[in-house]
């Protein structure tokens, strides 16, 4: 009965979304406050309804109600509670419900916090948001009903793929979706601005926090996914340039570009139509990502069997939204007047270079990800584009950008003095060269490029700090003045310092792990030892351990370094009898600078066990850097300028009024 209520709530939500799409748009067109006011109520009601449907689904999973097909297919009564809950979104239907729930949440947030938005803009934003809701709730109801019943209900469920029974992956989809769907806000604002025919500083100031929030969520989501891949897939890798990973990376790249161009639109009134275009592209790539993952067209470690109907419907939705938005853009964007003259050598110019390079990188990833699909669709040969392609395209495009990152913030708006900016970066440059030389001189193994890579990382971190130190007069005045200035410094400045510094740490992690990883694959019998880098591993014992819903083969490995006993590591190989699958649990020992990573394989039939071990220098820095970047975004999000300055909007000038 309760499941039917959930289904009913979802149908009601569709009706409400339809109202939210149509009525406020008409209201904004006719300047009718009452009709526009419907948007707020509809957004809140839609959120409550979808929230209810989602809660029903969670309830069904937690109580193991196997009369629901979705629960029977994806859950099991012996599963720990956390995985019963995460099982809700670890499947197609449930994850789509989560998708629309987050969409409705953003809509409700606009309704709730948007009191200072002009009512016409708010009505139009919510109407566009409503149209996305209509498309996706409709998609769920038509092709992927999560509330389907099973008759007769089985006594037990089929369980959840053990690879997904993992804390890292339990919360990876909600973060990723919060990011994907968060970009719908930038999209809705862009479409509303195109309909209104104007973009001003306060518009950009409203768009920035939404984009920033989405970017933070996306950054955390991607980092979690990569961390999960690192410790569960047992290959010691963290990024495979898999199409599904790329599907999340592309919106991230464009969202990063959008964050930067929105600054120019806000502060200088320039790059307006470009910012709108980026907002459209960012969400379009989220939709394409959803299509790639949900339609099952990919040959990917993430791909699940799915029904072709779904792919066709999502492709239809994606085409209508992207096509419609681009047509509207082509029609209305020429009306957007650019202001703010600037010389090529200026902060605006630097941000344009940032956008060009990020776009080029995005295009390279896009081609590498979709070219095999196009070729296949056209009846060509089946090909795979793997890591070497991306290393040869994405990396060289990003390199100049990384070099320019510390420089940009030191350039003034409008016209800048390059020499002065470079002088201020002398310290950072000197340190970067010093680090490169030290690495080159003292580290014999690994490619010589690694030395330059570490120099680049130093340049980024110290460069981010240089800008920050200059702003608070760290070395040029008394400490108390610096502290006072640091307190008064806009949070956005703090955020930028963290985000750019985090990027440097991330680069150090990537370079270090790529250049200096040591690998060992061997077979050990109980009592035997092997060496990887400076570590000696002794397989003391192999035993069995009973988990809540699995049985694990545990290798007890004593670790020694330079004769010093560091204790035990216990990698596991878990067998899940219900799902009839296995899952590797790597044992990872980290000291913050490098990871020792050990995996145990099956009995190899010769009385021993296959052991694979890696020493991954700087590996923790990869996720550390990503988290610092996300943290920078969060700090920036608390900047009071987003709240205090926002309501003041430029008066409407008659000449920029669109033909209605």
């Amino acid at each position, binding site marked *: 009965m309760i499941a039917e209520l959930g289904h009913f709530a979802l149908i009601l939500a569709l009706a409400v979304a339809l109202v939210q799409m149509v009525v406020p748009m008409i209201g904004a067109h006719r300047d009718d406050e009452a009709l526009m006011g419907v948007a707020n109520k509809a957004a809140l009601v839609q959120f409550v309804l979808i929230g209810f449907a989602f809660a029903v689904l969670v309830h069904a999973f937690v109580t193991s109600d196997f009369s629901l097909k979705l629960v029977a297919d994806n859950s099991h009564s012996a599963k720990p509670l956390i995985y019963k809950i995460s099982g809700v979104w670890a499947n197609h239907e449930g994850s789509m419900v989560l998708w629309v729930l987050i969409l409705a949440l953003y809509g409700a947030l606009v309704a709730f916090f948007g009191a200072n938005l002009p009512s016409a803009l708010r009505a139009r934003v919510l109407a566009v948001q409503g149209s996305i809701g209509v498309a996706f709730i409709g998609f769920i109801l038509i092709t992927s009903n999560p509330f389907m019943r099973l008759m007769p209900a089985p006594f037990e469920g089929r369980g959840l793929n053990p690879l997904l029974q993992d804390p890292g992956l339990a919360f990876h989809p909600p973060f990723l979706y919060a990011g994907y769907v968060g970009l719908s806000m930038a999209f809705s604002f862009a479409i509303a601005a195109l309909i209104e025919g104007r973009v001003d500083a306060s518009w950009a100031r409203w768009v920035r926090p939404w984009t920033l929030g989405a970017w933070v969520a996306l950054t955390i989501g991607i980092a979690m996914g990569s961390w999960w891949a690192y410790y569960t897939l047992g290959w010691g890798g963290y990024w495979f340039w898999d199409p599904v990973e790329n599907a999340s990376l592309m919106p991230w790249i464009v969202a990063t570009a959008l964050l930067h161009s929105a600054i120019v639109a806000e502060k200088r009134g320039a790059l307006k139509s470009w910012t709108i275009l980026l907002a459209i592209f960012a969400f379009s790539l989220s939709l394409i990502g959803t299509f790639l993952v949900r339609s099952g067209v990919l*040959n990917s470690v993430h791909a699940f069997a799915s029904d072709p109907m779904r792919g066709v419907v999502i492709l239809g939705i994606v085409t209508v939204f992207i096509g419609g938005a681009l047509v509207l853009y082509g029609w209305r964007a020429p009306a957007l007047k650019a202001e703010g003259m600037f010389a090529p050598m200026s902060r605006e110019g630097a941000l344009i270079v940032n956008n060009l390079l990020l776009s080029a990188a995005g295009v390279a990833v896009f081609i590498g990800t979709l070219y095999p699909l196009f070729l296949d669709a056209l009846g060509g040969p089946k090909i795979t584009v793997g890591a070497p392609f991306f290393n040869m395209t994405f990396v060289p495009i990003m390199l100049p950008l990384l070099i320019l990152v510390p420089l940009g913030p030191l350039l003034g708006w409008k016209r800048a003095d390059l020499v002065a900016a470079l002088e201020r970066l002398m310290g950072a440059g000197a340190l970067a060269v010093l680090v490169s030389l030290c690495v080159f001189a003292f580290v014999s193994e690994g490619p010589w490029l690694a030395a330059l890579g570490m120099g680049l990382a130093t340049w980024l971190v110290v460069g981010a700090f240089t800008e920050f130190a200059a702003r608070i007069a760290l070395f040029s005045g008394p400490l108390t003045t610096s502290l006072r200035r640091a307190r008064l410094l806009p949070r956005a400045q703090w955020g930028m310092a963290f985000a750019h510094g985090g990027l440097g740490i991330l680069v150090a992690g990537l370079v270090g792990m790529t250049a200096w990883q040591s690998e060992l694959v061997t077979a050990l019998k109980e009592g035997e030892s092997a060496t990887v880098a400076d570590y000696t591993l002794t397989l003391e014992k192999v035993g069995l351990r009973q988990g809540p819903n699995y049985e694990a083969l545990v290798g007890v490995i004593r670790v020694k370094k330079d004769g010093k006993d560091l204790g035990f590591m216990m990698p596991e190989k878990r067998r899940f009898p219900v799902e009839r699958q296995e899952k590797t649990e790597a044992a990872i020992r980290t000291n913050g600078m490098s990871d020792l990573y050990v995996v145990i394989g099956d009995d190899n039939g010769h009385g021993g066990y296959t052991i694979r071990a890696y020493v991954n220098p700087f590996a923790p820095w990869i996720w550390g850097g990503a988290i610092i970047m996300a943290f920078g975004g969060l700090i920036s999000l608390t900047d009071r300028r987003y709240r205090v300055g926002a309501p003041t909007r430029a008066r409407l000038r008659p000449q920029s009024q669109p033909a209605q």
Partner: protein
Amino acid sequence: MTRKQRRATFILLSLAILGMAAGLVLYAMRDNIVFFYSPSDIIEKSVTPGSRIRIGGMVENGSLKNTSPTSIEFNVTDYAKTMRVAYTGILPDLFREGQGVVAEGTLQPDGSFVADTVLAKHDEKYMPPEVAESLKKAGRWKEGEEMPAPDGAYTK
């Protein structure tokens, strides 16, 4: 600098960056794409040994063997033709006899295949699309049908 010159600067800059990206993409496309073949394809299309390819099919029942403590060999079949695949390392968790697999590596002059990456299917229902396709081509499987067991007998 006039407005025109400024615009020209940015247009040239954009073209330079896009040109660089296009050049890199085209160059990387030439050497870094990997073709997929089924065991039948390899024999019919006489793939040159030594080039990097992916092969896919079903792991033949009873063919998995440890050749050394860390190396294994198994047969990949599309029911028409069968190939021997050698691999050193730990197999992915989802690798099992009688199920779909994709292996990346190089074809040897003796017609066997040395894989450096083995990708196994992801869940009970999933089969790599290329494998499904090549099985369909070989006429051994239709959409929606129960998979034939790779030793030829239909077993449940």
